[in-house]
């Protein structure tokens, strides 16, 4: 395990800084608002800061600018109709959200999906992870002044989006899963093209990381900046790469495997110091591990049905049956108008998404509409540490910290 941290905590650093300045240079504190439309706040986060010179003495994140009331909306529509709304949570990895939501409802219905469906979901979730980390990495590098990395990252992400487009029909808002399956099977030759993407992606990833990992300017901006100790990370409920950057090896894909993750071999990278640089390293390594998982999934891609064929009251029948048989036609009408029939009960399911742990808590009173749906969004919980980690840092370091936390406001405000 990693060695313990030796960095002084932020509050002590702030106090030391304040004492060091001679009396004649003491100035009034200034309050400054960063966001909600600031390029480094990645969306609509507003940071209400109190500054002593250039050093932060207080930082209050103000969230809610993108609040759409998704949890309430969910109560007014059937389980399947809510799938497009899950796209718009973490909109950088919609496929992973779709999967987490579908599995949550399936757990409530005690429904097992076939192996092929599980494999498709794992495959798409890992591709979504790569695309989300590419964006996170590119934006982080851009925030600390490295332009090219973003451009190269977007180029790779474009290739992934072409694959998503072919599979789901849309590049961004995929709405790919349905309760009990997915909307369509993988197209002919798509797996081979995904494999080919992995082959060409790895060298480009290495090239991209090479621009940053041993770069003195990048390291000066990130090493020792925004240190989150192991205890703090756990206390504030951080998850995902931010928690692993602080040295806690929590990864639900390993610890509580779902959708067949237990069959695949991969490492869980953890950081040693918990600074911005560690969070960067973790994301870089996770992309390599995702490629490893994708290759394993494709290597043993199971045959068989790609949706739960026995769940007649949950997954709609195939289209040609609907067109030719009265029974299936009625079944189709029932599932659409009444919703997939889910028994009464409660479920909490969480999945390891690119940003952290995305949880869905669903209360059902039976029928096709959830009685209550609660979303535990990783970005919201990850941002809770901002008041602690920003204090005592320079204002330019706040940009590094925000970039390294890699949040999405669509999910935070939901």
């Amino acid at each position: 395990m990693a060695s313990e941290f030796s960095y002084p905590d932020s509050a002590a650093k702030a106090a030391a800084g304040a004492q060091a300045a001679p009396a004649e240079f003491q100035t009034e504190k200034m309050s400054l608002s960063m966001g909600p439309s600031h390029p480094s706040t990645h969306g609509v986060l507003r940071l209400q800061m109190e500054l002593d010179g250039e050093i932060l003495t207080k930082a209050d994140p103000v969230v809610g600018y993108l609040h759409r009331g998704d949890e309430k909306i969910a109560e007014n529509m059937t389980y399947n109709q809510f799938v497009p709304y899950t796209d718009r949570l973490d909109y950088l990895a919609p496929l992973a959200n779709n999967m987490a939501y579908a599995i949550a409802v399936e757990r409530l219905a005690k429904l097992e999906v076939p192996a092929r469906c599980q494999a498709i979901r794992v495959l798409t979730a890992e591709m979504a992870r790569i695309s989300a980390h590419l964006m996170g990495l590119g934006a982080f590098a851009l925030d600390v002044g490295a332009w090219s990395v973003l451009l190269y990252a977007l180029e790779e992400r474009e290739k992934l989006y072409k694959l998503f487009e072919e599979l789901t029909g849309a590049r961004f808002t995929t709405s790919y899963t349905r309760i009990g399956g997915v909307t369509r099977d993988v197209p002919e030759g798509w797996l081979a093209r995904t494999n080919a993407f992995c082959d060409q992606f790895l060298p480009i990833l290495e090239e991209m990381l090479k621009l940053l990992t041993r770069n003195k300017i990048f390291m000066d901006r990130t090493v020792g900046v925004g240190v989150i100790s192991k205890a703090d990370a756990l206390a504030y409920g951080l998850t995902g790469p931010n928690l692993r950057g602080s040295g806690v090896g929590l990864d639900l894909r390993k610890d509580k495997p779902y959708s067949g993750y237990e069959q695949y071999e991969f490492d869980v990278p953890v950081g040693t110091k918990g600074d911005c640089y560690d969070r960067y390293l973790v994301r870089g390594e996770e992309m390599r591990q995702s490629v490893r998982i994708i290759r394993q999934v494709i290597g043993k891609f199971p045959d068989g049905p790609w949706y739960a064929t026995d769940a007649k009251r949950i997954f709609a029948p195939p289209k040609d049956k609907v067109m030719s048989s009265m029974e299936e036609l009625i079944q189709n009408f029932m599932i659409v108008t009444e919703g997939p029939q889910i028994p009464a009960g409660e479920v909490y399911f969480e999945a390891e998404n690119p940003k952290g742990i995305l949880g869905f808590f669903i209360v059902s009173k039976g029928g096709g509409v959830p009685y209550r749906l609660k979303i535990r969004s990783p970005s919201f919980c990850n941002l809770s540490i901002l008041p602690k980690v920003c204090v005592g840092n320079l204002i330019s370091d706040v940009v590094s910290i925000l970039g390294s936390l890699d949040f999405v406001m669509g999910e935070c405000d939901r």
Partner: protein
Amino acid sequence: MATGTPLERKPLTFAERTYVPQILSGLKTTWQHLVRPKETLEYPEQRPAIPPGYRGVPTLVKDPHGREKCVSCQLCEFVCPPKAIRITPGEIAPDAPTGHVEKAPKEFEIDMLRCIYCGMCQEVCPEEAIFLQNQFSMTGYTREEMVNNKARLYELGGTLPDDHFKWDKKLEAEKHGNAH
């Protein structure tokens, strides 16, 4: 909890601290990218290739005999998550060639300012009458222009092949007295 694999962090060597190797390798990378094939397109002169199954603008289609397929069951109107579809059902005159179908939409409107291109209307349609096709770009100057009415939807949709001819089969069965 999994233990995790700690990531290695080596301190910078003297050469790396001078920043010279990093500049050189960075320049090498950018020069390599300069001669790589371009990923960008000069839109709108060049258009991206649209894969089959793409979810573009929703349209209504006719069968190969030019008959309208929609029977205004209003299932798409019901399922549409943003409620972008509005249908007014109408009757088909009993003496018309398709009189046995009984219903067809009098009005059919899709508000493209609300549509989220999720494709659920196509997925649930029991008549294969509504399809999201290749067109991905819709523009207009007014809100009214962005509402596609029935005529516009059929114009956008055109004709698609039909594997079933469901209503012809039904008429045939009725003639032989074994409908349903």
